[in-house]
């Protein structure tokens, strides 16, 4: 069974936001941005811009009929700046014009006067000034204070990880149409249609029922369109509502890079202790999260950092504290992994720090301390169906870890310029929204009288293949061909109050709701068949569109049965609700059972570093992963490969550069580099571990979206391993991404090539014949 969308994608027939045929009278919107990162907003002068050809209207905060507020967790984010500006690129006003060119041309003619205030970009500095988004959180188990005394070895250090631009290839956008009841219909490129609906209603001062949000698909999301699509949806809706004309707002790439938040950079302190057998005894970590100028999803991201602070390891005594620090950067937001990767990077750094100082292989420390069945995590949830050791041992034997290590060592002994490095990266990732109430979903399933089926859920298709999985769930449950099933666009009037497509949980939640709806429909149809054909209901099934009684074909088929149901006035529609069972979490004690289950796996990474040029290439990443009973191995493998390469990008090439004024310098695709064909590892092996899956996973097929991103962390440590082979015994900072610049400077730390006091600045002249 192929993933359905690709057959349309390859023909260019899939419709994305900017492909919607333009309605006559459409106005184009462009956003006026704050020119400075912090200050008092004195005035916005747009008289000159209004005189330009085609410019219809320019909206500011004053034009907002409802509440000027789009903050999700904390109400600290105005839609359009009012009083102050808090980051460069913050929306200040909205230009509406007859053409896109006219709208953009007007931007330069709007004068925004700001009296500057001090700018903070460093999270530790923000914390020192008590600029916190929410009070700090601490996860604690055991007692680290007394535990240090029991440790034979204790190490401490600092680890830094950089941010990451989502770089969905389709930029943010929305297209809003006024409706006759004074409301608005918004087509939005969002992972969270309900968030767009809720905040648009708030901004317009109307009920949520007056705002319809529809999403066909996204050209990539990765978390970047979970909360941050709201701004553009609400702005387009505001324009449409005020002008009573359709308004289209699509960010160009550089505006998208400047204005939207990214993965949170973290600066963290760690302290780690082992007993004489190198078993982990205690771990302390303090995380300084660079949240940017508003809360956005930062408190939830911060929480997940704490959930994953110990990654795949059992540690009896843990104290992990996290600060969400307010800085004058665009509000940082969800990004695949959602704070988990940042937490895992720190514990992996701590283990490497310990191993380097102890002179033992880090893999030794890692393997010895992996989680086992029933081990209690710092938030008190015990592991259940733990595959940490299985994943490690399978990867180690299948890919011959000792042989790889020996190969790397041999190569390094024989080569001067090129050095190989190796790392092993185990992962353990919890599945569920950690905010328990969000773990609910609904599915609306219609069976039409010809036997075709339409399924609506809250799931947004963004390339992860969720529509295909939902289609498979419906087809399998009803016993019909997948070709009969259509998964509809995600629309707030069909399925309301949805959770965003996020947390890797979309297929589980919406798939389970679809399964429940289809089970109810199937039961209803089979009870009708039992009555009509005078058969025992028990033992009736539908397989391959044929009704079977105790395994033998009965005198009706799917089509006949559906038709009969209609004529018997039996409902062919079902709306089912699913809420993940058994999960709870107390945010005061930071204890509970927040996850439906955990996903495990292990990746082995090998890299070759050119120690002359400071560049590197990944030879292979070899993975053993816990998929459970994969519903669609091709989709799931694609998630592993894609997530891994995205994680490698975060750890290696992808470097966000802001200057001290809070201005983004890596502001285009020519200065912000994501992996290309040649920077992906030459080999990626994915082994499907033999694991049973979990009853909370859709058809026991485990969630797969986020976990593989963290395999990319292995890339960092593999490069570091190679550098230390060139410079044995070197102490290197833990600082990601490990760009070619950092590699070269680490390889040659003693070379001080300072600028000579006197330099010729004239253009050189000819020397050669």
């Amino acid at each position, binding site marked *: 069974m*192929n993933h359905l*969308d*690709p*057959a349309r*994608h*390859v*023909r*260019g*027939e899939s419709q*994305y936001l*900017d492909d919607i045929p333009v309605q006559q009278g459409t106005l184009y919107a462009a956003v006026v941005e704050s020119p400075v990162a912090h200050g008092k907003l004195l005035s916005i002068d747009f008289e000159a811009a209004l005189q330009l050809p085609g410019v219809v209207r320019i909206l500011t905060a004053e034009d907002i009929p409802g509440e000027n507020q789009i903050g999700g967790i904390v109400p600290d984010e105005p839609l359009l700046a009012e009083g102050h500006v808090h980051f460069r690129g913050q929306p200040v006003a909205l230009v509406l014009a007859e053409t896109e*060119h006219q709208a*953009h041309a007007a931007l330069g003619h709007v004068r925004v006067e700001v009296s500057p205030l001090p700018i903070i970009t460093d999270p530790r500095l923000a914390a020192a000034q008590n600029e916190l988004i929410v009070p700090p959180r601490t996860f604690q188990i055991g007692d680290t204070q007394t535990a240090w005394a029991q440790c034979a070895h204790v190490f401490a250090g600092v680890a830094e990880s950089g941010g990451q631009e989502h*770089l*969905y*290839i*389709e*930029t943010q956008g929305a297209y809003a149409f006024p409706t006759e009841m004074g409301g608005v219909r918004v087509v939005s490129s969002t992972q969270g249609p309900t968030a767009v609906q809720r905040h648009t209603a708030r901004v317009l001062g109307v009920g949520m029922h007056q705002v319809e949000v529809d999403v066909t*698909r996204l*050209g*990539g*999301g990765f978390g970047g369109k979970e909360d941050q699509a709201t701004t553009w949806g609400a702005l387009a809706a505001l324009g449409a509502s005020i002008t009573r004309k359709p308004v289209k707002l699509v960010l*160009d*790439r550089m505006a998208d890079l400047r204005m939207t938040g990214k993965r949170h950079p973290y600066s963290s302190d760690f302290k780690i202790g082992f007993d004489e057998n190198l078993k982990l005894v205690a771990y302390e970590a303090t995380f300084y999260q660079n949240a940017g100028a508003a809360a956005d999803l930062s408190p939830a991201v911060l929480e997940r950092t704490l959930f994953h602070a110990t990654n795949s390891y059992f540690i009896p005594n843990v104290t992990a504290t996290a600060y969400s620090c307010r800085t004058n950067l665009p509000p940082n937001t969800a990004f695949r992994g959602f704070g988990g990767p940042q937490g895992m990077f720190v514990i992996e750094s701590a283990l490497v720090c310990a191993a380097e100082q102890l002179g033992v292989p880090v893999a030794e420390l890692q393997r010895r301390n992996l989680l086992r069945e029933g081990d209690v995590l710092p938030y008190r949830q015990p592991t259940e169906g733990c595959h940490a050791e299985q994943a490690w041992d399978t990867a180690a034997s299948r890919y011959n870890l000792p042989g790889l290590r020996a190969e790397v060592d041999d190569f390094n002994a024989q080569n*001067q*310029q090129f050095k190989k490095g190796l790392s092993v990266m185990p992962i353990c990732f919890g599945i569920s929204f950690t905010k328990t109430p969000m773990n609910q979903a609904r599915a609306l399933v219609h069976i039409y009288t010809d036997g075709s089926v339409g399924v609506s859920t809250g799931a947004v298709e*963004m*390339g*992860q293949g969720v529509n295909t999985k939902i289609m498979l769930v419906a087809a399998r449950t009803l016993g019909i061909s997948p070709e009969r099933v259509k998964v509809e666009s995600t629309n707030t009037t069909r399925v309301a109050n949805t959770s965003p497509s996020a947390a890797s949980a979309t297929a589980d939640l919406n798939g389970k709701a679809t399964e429940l709806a289809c089970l109810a429909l199937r039961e209803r149809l089979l009870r009708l068949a039992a009555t009509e054909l005078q058969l025992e209901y028990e033992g009736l099934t539908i397989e391959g569109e044929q009704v079977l009684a105790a395994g033998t074909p009965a005198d009706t088929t799917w089509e006949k049965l559906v038709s009969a149901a209609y004529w018997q006035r039996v409902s062919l529609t079902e709306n089912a609700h699913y809420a993940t069972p058994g999960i709870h979490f107390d945010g005061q004690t930071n204890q509970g059972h927040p996850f439906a289950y955990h996903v495990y796996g292990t990746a082995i990474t090998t890299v070759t570093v050119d120690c*002359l*040029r*400071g560049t590197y290439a990944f030879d292979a990443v070899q993975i053993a992963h816990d998929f459970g009973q994969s519903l669609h191995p*091709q989709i799931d493998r694609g998630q592993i*490969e*894609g997530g*891994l*390469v995205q994680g490698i990008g975060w750890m290696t090439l992808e470097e966000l550069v802001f200057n001290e004024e809070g201005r983004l310098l890596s502001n285009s*695709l*020519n*200065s912000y*580099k994501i*992996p*290309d*064909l*040649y*920077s*992906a590892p030459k080999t*990626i092996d994915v082994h499907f571990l033999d694991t049973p899956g979990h009853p909370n996973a859709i058809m026991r097929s485990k969630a797969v979206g986020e976990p593989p991103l963290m395999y990319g962390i292995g890339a960092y440590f593999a490069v570091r391993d190679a550098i230390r082979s060139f410079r044995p015994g070197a102490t290197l900072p833990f600082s990601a991404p490990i*760009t070619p*610049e950092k590699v*070269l400077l680490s390889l040659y730390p003693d*070379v001080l090539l300072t*600028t000579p006091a006197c330099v010729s600045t004239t*253009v*050189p*002249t*000819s*020397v*050669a*014949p």
Partner: protein
Amino acid sequence: MLQFYLNDQLIRTSQPAGSTLLDFVRYHRHLTGTKIGCREGDCGACTVLVGELQPDGQTVSYQSMTSCLTPLGNAHGRHVVTVEGINAARGTLTPVQQAIVAEGGSQCGFCTVGFVMSLTGHSLNPKPGTPETALASIDGNICRCTGYKSLERATLALQQQLTNRPTEQPLAWLAEQGFVPTYFQGIPAKLTALRAATEASAVSAQPAQNSHSVTVTGLDAASAARAQVLGGGTDLLVQRPEQLREMPVQLLYGQPERRGIRREGHQIVLGAATTAQELLESEVLQEMLPHLPEYLKLVSSTPIRNMGTVAGNFINASPIGDLTILFLALGASLTLEDPGLGQRRELPLQDLYLGYKQLAKMADEQVLSIHFPAPLITDYFNFEKVSKRTHLDIASVNSAAWLRVQGGLVQAVRLSAGGVGPVPLMLPRTAEFLVGREISAETVRGALELAQEEISPISDVRGTVQYKRLLLRQLLAAHFLQFFPAQLQLTDLL
């Protein structure tokens, strides 16, 4: 009036020649399969094929281009192909599309059409492909979802199918196999007719003038004087697309008189509008510079190399222009022409740069051709580039070196370095130091040290001063390690 074929349709349009092909296909022709990702040629979501009638009049050569940077005027007389122009009947997929679907090479789908077009272009390439060239055809396509392995598998499966492509009449085979619709076979005749028609009308309209630029842009004398000279569009359409849309442009891309790479005695001469890809594929150059294709693979991507011209790279005057650095070390000179005055002059490339983006060239002067002394087969030449991402990236530092050694002594040297000053630099003092010396670790170390005095890098998004200084030292060392592997050891130099 621009005229060209877009898929199977003849287009006649008065849209500005300096506007982008992307906007034309998406917003004027409503062909929405071609996507907008970055508008700077760095993602490939907008990749289309542009076919040019070959001198034989019988064949059309197709190249992938990023339509975001393709001036609409550069489509004139050509065949532009978007995905809508290769799609088969509903329900069937071309072998390229089928390979991507079968391998799971499309997730969100937004970049997918770009890959489809690049691989279709590869299938149409008259030269027999290899797995490496097949992969190289998608080196300008960025995908954020898949991690590329599924696309690699699709590409290799496709290349396997293409091994069956006959060398004679490949197009007929490709049409039969469904790679392209059958109308492709009629395109050479259509382009021939189109060329004849436009030449006839041009001659009747403007008998006294240069036919190509006039017919393309329809410029009168006054407009021509204000016109922006435009080559492949790969720099100017990134830097100021809005202005180019509004102003007259003079199009040089593909002009026969500014093309071609040839040897004239001891000189190599190339037309100003020679593209980077033409350099890469040139047999004339490869004879003297056997590693040139490897160097050029580090320069942008296949679609951008298909568009960007050598003179464009020089005139853009980026201190870090890869081709500029390469040609500086080759000792290139320019032939400049003032078309108004009809005057020509020669200018060494290294004298072109006065300061950051300041040129020793009159506003009206245009580069006509580029020439350089043919290196001897015994000469040493090397190009080095390090960027954050090895491919499709702008250098942090780049450098080229040319060396002639006789009787064990360095006889002549040219060293160039980019990213370490306000202009693409030569390192004359370092070169002078080397002349007359024997190659040894000591000599090279002396040169590396001296080079530091000739550069003045600044910290920016491509690296700190400290890094750029160190990196230039490394790259200079890399030249010598490449040249003299028997005499020199990495540990002795650094």
